[in-house]
């Protein structure tokens, strides 16, 4: 202990305290403050950048989800449209078929009616011709047969009988 006290130099203590104090002050002002500030800023910057990246990642996920949803919707819509189109097509085809049927039926009916009326007209015509022909035949027969009275009568009878049968 005595040796330590002997070794202790007040002058050196004075200079050390003074110079260290000065060094501490200068370094504080011109070194530690800017250094620690810069390190802090950098760390903050890194943290912020990481946060931003995380945020961007989340946003990206959201966007992906959105686009997927949109795609799904679009697909569903397309499906629906296709379905509707098919239905419309079916309906049109069905309608057309029906209409064709109706039109066909109508045509057939018209045709039938025409045929009927033609037939009737033809029958009437035939009848008139038959009547004329009959009258002509009768005239000829009568002219021939009327020479014989008996034959005339018989003919009239037959003819009449035939006509009735008709």
């Amino acid at each position: 202990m005595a040796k330590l006290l002997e070794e202790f130099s007040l002058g050196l203590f004075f200079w050390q305290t003074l110079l260290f104090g000065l060094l501490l002050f200068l370094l504080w002002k011109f070194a530690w403050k800017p250094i620690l500030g810069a390190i802090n800023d950098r760390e903050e910057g890194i943290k912020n950048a990481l946060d931003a990246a995380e945020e961007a990642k989340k946003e990206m996920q959201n966007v992906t989800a959105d686009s997927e949803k949109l795609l799904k919707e679009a697909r569903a819509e397309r499906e629906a449209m296709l379905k509707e189109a098919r239905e419309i097509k079916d309906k049109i085809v069905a309608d057309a078929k029906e209409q064709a049927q109706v039109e066909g039926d109508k045509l057939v009916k018209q045709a039938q009616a025409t045929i009927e009326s033609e037939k009737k007209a033809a029958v009437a015509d035939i009848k008139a011709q038959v009547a004329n022909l009959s009258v002509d035949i009768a005239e000829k027969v009568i002219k021939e047969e009327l020479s014989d009275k008996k034959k005339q009568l018989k003919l009239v009878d037959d003819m009449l009988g035939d006509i009735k049968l008709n």
Partner: protein
Amino acid sequence: MQKTFFKGILVVTALLLGQFTFASEKKDEAGDHGKDLKTEIKEYITHHLQDSHDFSLFSYTKENGEHKYVGFPLPVILWDDGLKIFSSSKFHHGETLAEVNGNHYKLYHSKIYKTDAEGTINYDEDHHATNVKPLDFSITKNVVMIIVTGLLMLWLFTSLAKSYTKNNGIPTGAGRFFEPIVMYIRDDIARPNIGEKRYKKYMPFLLTIFFFIWFLNIFGLTPLGINVTGNIAITVSLALMTFVITNVTGTKDYWMHQFDPLGKSLPWYGKIPLYIILVPIELLGLIIKPFSLLIRLYANMQAGHIVLMSLIGLMFIFKSWLGSPLSFGLAFAISLIEVLVALLQAYIFTMLSALYFGFASEDHHEEGHENDPELAHL
């Protein structure tokens, strides 16, 4: 990695070579004086451990027996009935008296004594000089080294600070080496010991004291023969600063803990008998903490220098093909360990300072701090 390793090897080699030249001088001196080699070495070591009034790099003796010193003198500043400033070259390394304004001063064992014109030194029974010692504020070798270290630190760390602004927050050059250390002190010394809330205001002191001690320790390993951190005045000053900062920034809880260590766990009448012992212990702890700091640093650096130089001195005592290489190898190994010790002591001083600051700035009263003095003896 490879590069730094080679650099390290270079540094260590240079270091050892330097010590080597020092040692060889001793041998010459011893031969010339005809003194005992062991005494010579012992005196040399003692001389080296002390502060000196001139910055001598090395000395040798000429053929005609004249001592030659290579180095430069430093200013001597004395307070002896007024300021007296003169160059230390007047002492001629203690060989002559310095005469200033009719006063005579003699350099004796690295201390300045006031003497008569003949330079007589009076001794008491214990062979201590009894002459008047004027107040000595000289710019000694240690003061020069403090200034050099201070300038080096200023240059290093202001340029590191500048490199941040220039280089977008990324350090360049030597800053790449020092920045991780700065961050280590912040993240592994200050933050855990002082706490997230208050560590910032202690950072400048912790950083300054760490690099100051570390650099001076490393300078002590160079062949310049410097022993700043192994000087008791330096360590007293450093520890005193930690002590002052600890107690000036101490919170109410800290002082409560000093004078009322048991808090509300005991009624007042139960505390009286305990406190007669406890409070003095707590108060003693206040002093013991910085005291352990100053003794630890002083003793470690002093011991390192003594061991290293003794081992080098052994080479010249053995003078044999077996002993000298052996002590050389040992000196080499110790040099390597000393490089580690230089860092370790700086770390311990900083770490414990931070720990004490942490105790002093604690907000919440915690029990179990009676172990403080033990912790301080790490």
